[in-house]
């Protein structure tokens, strides 16, 4: 029996190819994601292990505040800790480490790197001896006062020359240094794509910290014969409160864990799309097996009549699924390596440059890909196989109709209805708080429900969608319409895969359009200035506050409000919160955040402004106090000096620069919002601001309109990335159409021969097949678009309490998606149409 199943599988190689391809794509995506994230993970693991490989003890502040999204901010420790630690017995070498934002400006005047999206741009104190992860290259020397050494990667990218005077942007503004050397990190020019500027310790403290005698950490190399545990314990014994000592192994493990945490977000994001592609593949496999089972019902009936048991027929079908699943998974697994490269290129194209070293192909990747691919295939084939086993032996003798039944049944209506309803309930429950997984499960149930209901509407819908096609397509159009309508189960199953893909594409398109409108709306109403100087940095580095000071001194400028982001520990609730820090003198003249009591301008160093929702939730009123803890270990009691209603830009809390500057963190404006006086023309004001901004190579000057458009365009960037990732699922869906049409043609060989015999031209046959594909694709895209709009609407309603008030159905984008879907269907049918058109007439008619 195994042999029979094997032979029959091999005999259908071509029929199964499309199915295998869809499994392959899904598995390749899955394997690619795992390979990609494993590779990044290994790269960073190696990087951190390299940085700390000679570190036996790492001394740092105990205070750390969570910034969200896996990032955190840690306080610094006094500079004299270096001497304290160096004096501990067992310590061989102790070096103070200072690290902060520093962006190197290339010879063309552009700042290198993009710290907002890619690897960090670091400034560090140069450490000599074994503790240093950096090796100076030939012709280089350690930096002294007024000198800098940079990583070899930036040296090449920036087209710089030793001995040049180069500009480095830091917290304290642009600085000029003499370039005295380059350094390599182990064997790489630029570790993980990060750029590094190395200074001597006093210079680093001056330019990176603004002169504070502090260090981020003390790195210790133990004296010969002293273990890292022993030296760490000795050091810990002399440290004051608030300072801690970690062993080298601990600091490596901690940084690696943190990185993995950040990476797991990316992994989950990509895996979601891999799962979507696999779900669409399920629909494709299910459909193909249904068709194959129908076409083979006579063969199976023959087997049954000569003595095959139901179970034998069932196993033979399932074996076919196993062979298919395993084969496709193996190929998909190896294709995954190529996909990993593609994912990296794609992320890079969208500005997210993730460093990756040698490809990591883990056993876990292989096992996961093989299991998922095989199980998905078998699970999708179970129902069709069960149906195969129920073919009565008599079907071998009598002509039993192919599954052409109308599919109109109460059972179908009830099943489909229950599934869809359950899906809607899960979807809504997920959206209203129970989690994203439930949303996903709900969406899947809705898809399956609509898939089950599909045959009920496929015939009338195919007929009405096909009506214009029948009108323009002549006899080929009429035949296409009838063919699409004559087997509603198959038509709706075939369109079903495309429905899933299109629904997701439409849902994110709708959400993106809504978010774009929201962005325009928010900035239009809440930002009242004329120009914006922005940096790409968000959370790390930014524009030196010097710029805002310079701008505010200019006669053309009425107010230039530098906006900073900070984080504090809410002492009462023991959670870390983010805040916006503003200059009270300027912010109120550039922003309208809807103050109901108090004013931006009156905000003091000991005051805080609170969003009304947050104030209500916490029962805060004017004059109440909040206690905030900061990374430098200080705790401040802040008085509520105002309540505002528009939290879209301002977030939950607003404090003053004066307070933020006392929290021990580097001071950066992520953007400076400018209102001009109007005394001079806009053009000359812009020219003057541009002159002032010029030395800050990482800052970009835009008019109000340009800035708002750019903010909205960031949404498009994410949208395009998601389109790219969903493309896999859509391709799988189109394969489903190609496959199904191709199988239908195989089944209708005689009929096609007859049509040819009675005078239908090749061209007419081909166009009938293509039109049929167009109708099926139109059915799938229309259903998908309708579902997608519903999903988008549900999501936007949920986001309403987050301030996303608008709901926008982008008509033109929807039309483009539907047209692309239909064209895709037609393109998918090109080959089957060619085969149908080139059938040998006599042989086709003689076909049993």
């Amino acid at each position, binding site marked *: 029996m195994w042999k029979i199943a094997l032979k029959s599988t091999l005999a259908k190689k071509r029929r199964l190819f499309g199915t295998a391809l869809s499994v392959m794509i899904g598995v390749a995506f899955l394997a690619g994601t795992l390979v990609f994230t494993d590779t990044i993970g290994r790269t960073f693991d190696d990087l951190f292990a390299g940085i700390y490989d000679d570190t036996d003890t790492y001394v740092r502040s105990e205070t750390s505040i969570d910034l969200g999204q896996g990032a955190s901010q840690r306080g610094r420790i006094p500079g004299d800790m270096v001497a304290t630690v160096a004096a501990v017995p067992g310590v061989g070498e102790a070096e103070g480490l200072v690290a902060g934002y520093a962006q190197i400006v290339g010879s063309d005047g552009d700042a290198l790197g993009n710290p907002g999206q890619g690897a960090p741009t670091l400034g560090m104190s140069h450490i000599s001896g074994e503790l240093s992860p950096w090796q100076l290259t030939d012709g280089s020397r350690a930096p002294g006062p007024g000198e800098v050494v940079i990583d070899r990667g930036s040296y090449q990218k920036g087209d710089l020359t030793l001995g040049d005077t180069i500009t480095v942007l830091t917290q304290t503004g642009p600085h000029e240094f003499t370039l005295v050397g380059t350094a390599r990190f182990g064997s790489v020019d630029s570790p993980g794509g990060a750029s590094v500027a190395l200074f001597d310790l006093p210079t680093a403290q001056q330019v990176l910290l603004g002169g504070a005698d502090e260090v981020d950490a003390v790195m210790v190399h133990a004296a010969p014969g002293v273990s890292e545990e022993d030296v760490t314990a000795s050091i810990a014994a002399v440290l004051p409160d608030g300072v801690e000592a970690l062993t080298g192994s601990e600091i490596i493990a901690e940084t690696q864990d943190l990185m993995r945490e950040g990476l797991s977000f990316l992994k989950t994001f990509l895996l979601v799309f891999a799962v979507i592609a696999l779900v669409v593949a399920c629909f494709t496999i299910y459909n193909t097996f249904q068709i194959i089972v129908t076409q083979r019902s006579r063969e199976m009936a023959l087997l049954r009549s*000569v003595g*095959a048991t139901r179970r034998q027929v069932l196993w033979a079908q399932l074996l076919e699924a196993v062979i298919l699943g395993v084969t496709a998974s193996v190929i998909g697994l190896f294709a995954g390596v190529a996909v990993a490269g593609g994912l990296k290129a794609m992320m890079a194209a969208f500005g997210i440059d993730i460093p990756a070293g040698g490809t990591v192909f883990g056993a876990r990747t292989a096992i996961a890909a093989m299991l998922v691919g095989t199980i998905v295939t078998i699970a999708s084939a179970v129902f069709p196989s069960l149906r195969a086993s129920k073919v009565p032996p008599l079907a*071998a*003798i009598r002509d039993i109709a192919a599954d052409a039944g109308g599919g109109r049944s109460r059972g179908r209506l009830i099943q489909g209805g229950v599934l869809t309803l359950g899906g809607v309930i899960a979807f809504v429950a997920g959206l209203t708080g129970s989690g994203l997984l439930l949303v996903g499960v709900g969406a899947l149930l809705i898809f399956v429900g609509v898939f089950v209901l599909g045959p009920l509407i496929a015939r009338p819908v195919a007929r009405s969608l096909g009506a214009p096609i029948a009108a323009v397509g002549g006899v080929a159009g009429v035949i296409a319409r009838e063919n699409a309508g004559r087997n509603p189960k198959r038509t709706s199953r075939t369109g079903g895969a495309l429905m899933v893909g299109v629904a997701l594409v439409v849902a994110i398109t709708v959400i993106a359009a809504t978010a774009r409108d929201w962005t325009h709306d928010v900035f239009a109403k809440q930002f009242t200035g004329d120009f914006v100087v922005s940096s790409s940095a968000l959370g790390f580095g930014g524009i030196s506050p010097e710029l805002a000071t310079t701008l505010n001194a200019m006669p053309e400028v009425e107010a230039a409000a530098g906006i900073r982001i900070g984080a504090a520990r809410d002492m009462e609730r023991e959670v870390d919160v983010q805040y916006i820090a503003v200059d009270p003198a300027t912010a109120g003249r550039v922003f309208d955040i809807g103050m109901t009591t108090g004013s931006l301008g009156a905000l003091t160093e000991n005051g805080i402004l609170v969003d009304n929702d947050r104030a209500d939730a916490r029962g805060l009123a004017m004059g109440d106090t909040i206690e905030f803890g900061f990374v430098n270990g200080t705790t401040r009691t802040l008085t509520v000096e105002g309540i505002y209603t528009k939290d879209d830009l301002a977030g939950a809390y607003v404090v003053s620069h004066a307070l933020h500057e006392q929290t021990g963190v580097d001071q950066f404006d992520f953007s400076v919002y400018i209102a001009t006086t109007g005394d001079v023309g806009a053009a000359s004001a812009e020219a003057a601001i541009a002159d002032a901004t010029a030395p800050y190579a990482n800052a970009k000057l835009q008019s109000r309109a340009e800035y708002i458009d750019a903010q909205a365009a960031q949404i498009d960037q994410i949208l395009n990335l998601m389109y790219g990732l969903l493309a896999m699922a859509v391709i799988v869906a189109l394969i489903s159409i190609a496959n199904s049409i191709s199988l239908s043609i195989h089944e209708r060989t005689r009929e096609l021969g007859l049509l040819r015999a009675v005078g239908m031209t090749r061209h007419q046959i081909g166009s009938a097949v293509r039109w049929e594909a167009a109708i099926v694709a139109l059915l799938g895209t229309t259903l998908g678009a309708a579902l997608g709009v519903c999903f988008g609407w549900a999501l936007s309603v949920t986001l309403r309490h987050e301030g996303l008030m608008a709901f926008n159905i982008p008509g033109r984008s929807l039309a483009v998606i539907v047209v692309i879907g239909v064209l895709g269907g037609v393109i998918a049918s090109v080959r089957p149409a060619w085969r149908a058109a080139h059938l040998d007439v006599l042989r086709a008619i003689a076909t*049993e």
Partner: protein
Amino acid sequence: MAAVLTPAPTTTAVAARAVDAVKVYGQGATEVRALDGVTIGFETGRLTAIMGPSGSGKSTLLYCLAGLDSLTSGTAYIGDTNLTTLNDKSLTVLRRDRVGFVFQAFNLVPTLTAAENITLPMALAGKRADDAWLQTLATSLRIQDRLHHRPSELSGGQQQRVAAARAMLTRPVLVFADEPTGNLDSRAATELLELTRAAVEGFGQTVVMVTHDARAASYADRVVFLADGRIVEELHHPKLDDILDQLKGLGA
């Protein structure tokens, strides 16, 4: 005493039989009584032909006797086994081990070679085919040099002879043939019928054949005529002309 020692007459002389067999398709106005109380037995080692006009119930009788279809009332036996008491699994095993089939068309699995098709019931049962018996059958059916060909590489006559070999490989109690010559030209049909006749005489194989073709029926030991679900006549060792006369009487 002698009477006591004489073995009682056994039912093995009858390979299959139907008792008061009734088969009704549809309900109410569309009700069709395909079999209307048929009682008949098929003797071992003989070739029996069932004839009758379209809709007379001859194929239904065959399917019900073979366990492919179930009776509305009455009983059907293969040997001593009452088919109406069997579930699907037992019926399947019975078909596999004790009955052989030859259909009008689509007799062979297209992806398997002739030899694999012939041994299919054994393979399904997880048993090894008797090679000597396979060779004997192949030789007597004149397909010994076609065994490694696929069905698409065989003529229609050869395909039917492969099906006949498959039907006889398990040494079944009886072979059912449903219009075995229906798709064959007259030369191939004659060859198949002659070889079938030889198998009946040479191996003592019991064969029940449904046919439209009077010439095919003339190879039978016994011809049973059905009309409107009832047996209306039977002939033993008939001449072709007798059969044709009978058919004329039935209006076929």
